[in-house]
């Protein structure tokens, strides 16, 4: 029974194993970045960046059809351009970074929707928006795993300046020139994880695997290491459960995975020991 429900789909079907590997790679790559986005109160930045990637992927599609490399390169370029220009504009003009980012991603999104709707068929639009985790080929899997590895390694190397940039940017600027570089590398990590995620889950759902597990982890752990571990665990579990639901009930897999993560978030919100609803409602104990 359990064998048939949980293990058989992965054992019997290659596409399920590929989907699982892809989702686990995205989970491990994206969630640490999501934790930092949440801690920096930039959760919605992930969303904005995901929209910004769309025209790049669309132009890639326009040039060479449903090609993995063209859409990846297009997405990366569009994401980096929006991240860099909005960061640059915020630093040289009076506008704040969130407003600047909002402006650029909206422009970018409009371009993307325009290209996709005039040149692509509906099926392609669905692919870009919702991904195709059940149709990942070898090249796509290698790409997803490489991006996840690159992201984790970069984060490990960059951890100290990134934490300081989050805690006390003024101090970092006074002792080091790394402040701006750190910020941009971090935004670049957001972009590469979203591009990786969009092959599996689509541009819109990719943000979900980045942000939902991170915000859910917030109710289980207080330290950074704890947050990242719990978030990666929740993301992986959501991937497995979401894929199985998608398999057994013929649901689209991207939304299924993100919905499971969403349920995980709501469960954490209610039952989580660190500031969850029930703990908050209990009478406070003196420590």
């Amino acid at each position: 029974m359990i064998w048939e429900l949980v293990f058989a789909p992965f054992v019997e079907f290659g596409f399920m194993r590929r989907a699982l590997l892809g989702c686990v790679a995205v989970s491990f790559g994206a969630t640490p970045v999501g934790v930092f986005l949440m801690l920096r109160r930039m959760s919605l930045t992930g969303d904005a960046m995901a929209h910004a990637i769309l025209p790049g992927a669309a132009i890639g599609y326009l040039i060479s059809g449903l090609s993995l490399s063209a859409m990846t390169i297009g997405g990366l370029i569009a994401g980096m351009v929006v991240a860099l220009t909005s960061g640059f504009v915020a630093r040289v003009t009076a506008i704040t970074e969130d407003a600047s980012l909002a402006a650029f991603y909206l422009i970018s999104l409009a371009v993307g929707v325009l290209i996709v709707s005039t040149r692509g068929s509906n099926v392609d639009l669905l692919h870009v928006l919702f991904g195709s985790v059940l149709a990942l080929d070898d090249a796509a899997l290698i790409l997803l795993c490489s991006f996840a590895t690159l992201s984790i390694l970069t984060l490990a190397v960059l951890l100290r300046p990134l934490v300081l940039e989050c805690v006390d940017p003024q101090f970092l600027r006074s002792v080091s020139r790394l402040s701006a570089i750190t910020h941009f590398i971090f935004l670049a990590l957001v972009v590469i994880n979203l591009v990786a995620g969009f092959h599996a889950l689509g541009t819109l759902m990719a943000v979900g695997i980045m942000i939902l597990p991170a915000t859910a982890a917030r109710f289980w752990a207080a330290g950074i290491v704890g947050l990242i571990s719990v978030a990666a665990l929740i993301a992986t579990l959501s991937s497995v459960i979401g894929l199985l639901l998608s398999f057994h009930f013929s649901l689209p897999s991207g939304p299924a995975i993100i919905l499971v993560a969403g349920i995980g978030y709501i469960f954490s919100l209610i039952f989580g020991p660190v500031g969850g609803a029930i703990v908050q409602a209990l009478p406070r104990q003196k420590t």
Partner: protein
Amino acid sequence: MNTLLSFQNLTLGYDRLPAVQQLSTEIAKGSLTAIVGPNGAGKSTLLKGVMGALAPLEGRVSINGFSESDIAYLPQQSQIDWHFPISVVDLVAMGLWREMGAFGRLGRTKSARVKEAMAVVGLTGFEKRLIGSLSGGQMQRALFARLLLQDSQLVLLDEPFTAIDSATMADLVAVIDGWHRQGRTVMAVLHDYQTVNTHFPQTLMLARELVAHGPTAMVLTTDNQLLASRMCEACAETPHVCGKVIT
């Protein structure tokens, strides 16, 4: 007298409106100087000018013997995100950034120094606590521990005792005295004249322009205080652009 800092006809300001005007004076190496003056007198602006965070509109600041990035600076409103989940010891250890950089190791010797700095400010036992759990006084103690580790020859403090309990203040004043005894140069923006009188040998009184600079007893007179507040009122009434009165 060994000069550490000299201000030459220094004018500092924002959007070309000066906050400090034509300041010319010198800060001696190893001196302990209080910077006092009415609100809007340019005290914080002066510290930012020394830090190099604000380029002079006119004149210059010369620092004798080391670079701006070797200055330890405690801003008035720190932009620290106290909700970020790092431990107190991690925050304090950031004071070693210049020695460790982004990738250096915190070895046994450095860990011991971090521990010692936390003991000096009375935060022993708080190492593993998250910074968000500290009280206002404890936060300021942690920031002083970080300043201690920066091991800088010039320490700039912008209103370090605002909204701090008296026990914390006494401990932090002792830290400042310690720096003074070690021959470090300290400049602190302060409001409480009693603290200035008791602990700060030198005082620089500012009201956009220099009012007086010298031994505290000579500077902190009633006449000077009246003069300073009159100068600031006059300033507020006449808009200035870059040192010249607009008529």
